[in-house]
């Protein structure tokens, strides 16, 4: 496989927008192309993440739509849907296309719009990523999925609601340092604990928000990246799946797909969790961050809650996690999330993250989870 580099990144502000998902992606892509110094006509393919366009915008075939709005209607486009991991899966396929020598310049990204519908509607549409026969018929929601995981983790390891709250407090703090984050205000453990219950034991402040937004990444071959000072290298990009049904999982306190994808990503990059300087991971709910830090090997199983409470995952801690504010504070426009996480790690490795910069970061990890933990993508990026 040829080496692949990220040459440019772009992200819209996350939050409520009065533009379509295609327009939001296109805004991010203009920024990413300018950042890369790449002309639109040089782009040879687009891999695109969009999840609930069919529901919130009554729009399928969003790949060519996004390319048309951007103004590159001629390139082959592929929409990838792996629930919330969609644009990370898109990233992985673009890496493979360049690595295999098929293309030299590939655009990756995603766009999502959900704040044009009510919370009850979007809760229902997101639940379409759980099984229609076994799970949706019960009225299962995504907060419900992670509530089941949280209760299992609390039962097995004694993890507390206060430790979960520490994740939210930390990511909100990081969000105050990111001008593109949806939430830019500090919160306290007491505020999290007092917030209304959504799916016991998860409360409102344990949950990421619904968000509109777009993100884009320009990937290029080694030939094009050579001599480009701000190029960031893709060390590996891996994915794993697991049983679709939560019922089929043996141990709800773990996410085996995270463990398998991480093992493959570390192996392909020739490094381990001890080499990772900065992490953007999938904190759709506070417990999701705790379980992910364990599954990625950053902390031992059962100690992710302690790590958050002791500040080991804060900026300035042992392994800063979600310096962008994460999904919790930066926001979670689901189809765009993976590309936005890549954008943050690239910014960190370039040393351009300003007040939220992790000093001297050389190796970064991106982790994105889809659905009932049935899809996970893990990529490692590094500075030359």
């Amino acid at each position: 496989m040829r080496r692949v580099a990220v040459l440019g990144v772009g992200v819209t502000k996350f939050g409520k927008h009065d533009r379509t998902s295609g327009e939001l992606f296109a805004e991010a892509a203009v920024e990413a192309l300018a950042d890369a110094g790449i002309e639109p006509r040089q782009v040879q393919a687009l891999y695109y993440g969009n999840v609930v366009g069919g529901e919130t915008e009554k729009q399928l075939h969003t790949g060519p739509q996004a390319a048309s709005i951007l103004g590159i209607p001629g390139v082959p486009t592929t929409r990838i849907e792996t629930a919330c991991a969609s644009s990370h899966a898109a990233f992985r396929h673009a890496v493979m296309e360049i690595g295999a020598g098929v293309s030299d310049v590939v655009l990756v990204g995603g766009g999502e719009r959900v704040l044009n519908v009510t919370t009850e509607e979007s809760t229902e549409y997101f639940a379409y990523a759980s099984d229609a026969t076994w799970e949706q018929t019960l009225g299962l929601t995504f907060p419900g999925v992670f509530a089941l995981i949280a209760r299992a983790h609390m039962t097995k390891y004694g993890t507390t609601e206060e430790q979960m709250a520490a994740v939210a407090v930390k990511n909100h703090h990081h969000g105050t340092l990111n001008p593109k984050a949806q939430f830019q205000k500090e919160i306290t453990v007491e505020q999290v604990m007092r917030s209304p219950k959504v799916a016991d034991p998860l409360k409102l402040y344990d949950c990421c928000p619904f968000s509109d937004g777009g993100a884009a990444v320009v990937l290029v071959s080694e030939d094009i990246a050579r001599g480009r000072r701000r190029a960031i290298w893709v060390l590996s990009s891996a994915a794993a799946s697991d049983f679709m049904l939560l019922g089929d999982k043996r141990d709800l306190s773990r996410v085996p797909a995270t463990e398998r994808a991480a093992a493959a990503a570390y192996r392909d990059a020739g490094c381990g969790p001890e080499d990772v300087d900065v992490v953007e991971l999938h904190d759709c709910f506070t417990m999701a961050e705790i379980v992910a830090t364990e599954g990625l090997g950053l902390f031992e199983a059962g100690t992710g809650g302690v790590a958050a409470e002791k500040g080991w995952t804060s900026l300035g801690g042992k392994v800063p996690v979600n310096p962008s504010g994460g999904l919790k504070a930066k926001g979670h426009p689901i189809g765009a999330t993976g590309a936005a996480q890549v954008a943050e790690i690239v910014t960190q490795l370039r040393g351009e993250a300003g007040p939220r910069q992790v000093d001297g970061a050389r190796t970064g990890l991106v982790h994105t989870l889809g659905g009932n933990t049935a899809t996970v993508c893990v990529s490692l990026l590094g500075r030359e």
Partner: protein
Amino acid sequence: MKAVSEPVITLKNFFERAREGQLTGIRCTACGEIAIPPKEFCPACGKRAWAPVPLSGEGTIDSFTVIRVAPRSFAGDAPYAIAHVRLVEGPGLLGRVLDVPLDRLSVGLRVTFRPLIASEQTSVGFVPA
């Protein structure tokens, strides 16, 4: 093309029997794995050698939640409990927990299957054993 036998039990078969109060699993005659249908190959050993096996419907709550913000179609039901139940035969199954006050739910509570029937729709429910 080589002819392939029909699946041992389809989703439709499973829920028709569930509606009558009977949970039906599938047992791998090669390795003994017991699973919830439908599955073609055994995820444990890779063989395609399932036989239907009646399940007792009895199990223990592994984890539970109370859904308070529900999807649009279930807004009228909230709050309601959903549990991950480990059946005595081994497989796990998600279901609604019925007939237990929400503040009396607990991990380790013994429950038994009861179909949740809403017009044409059958889904999985559990009541105290």
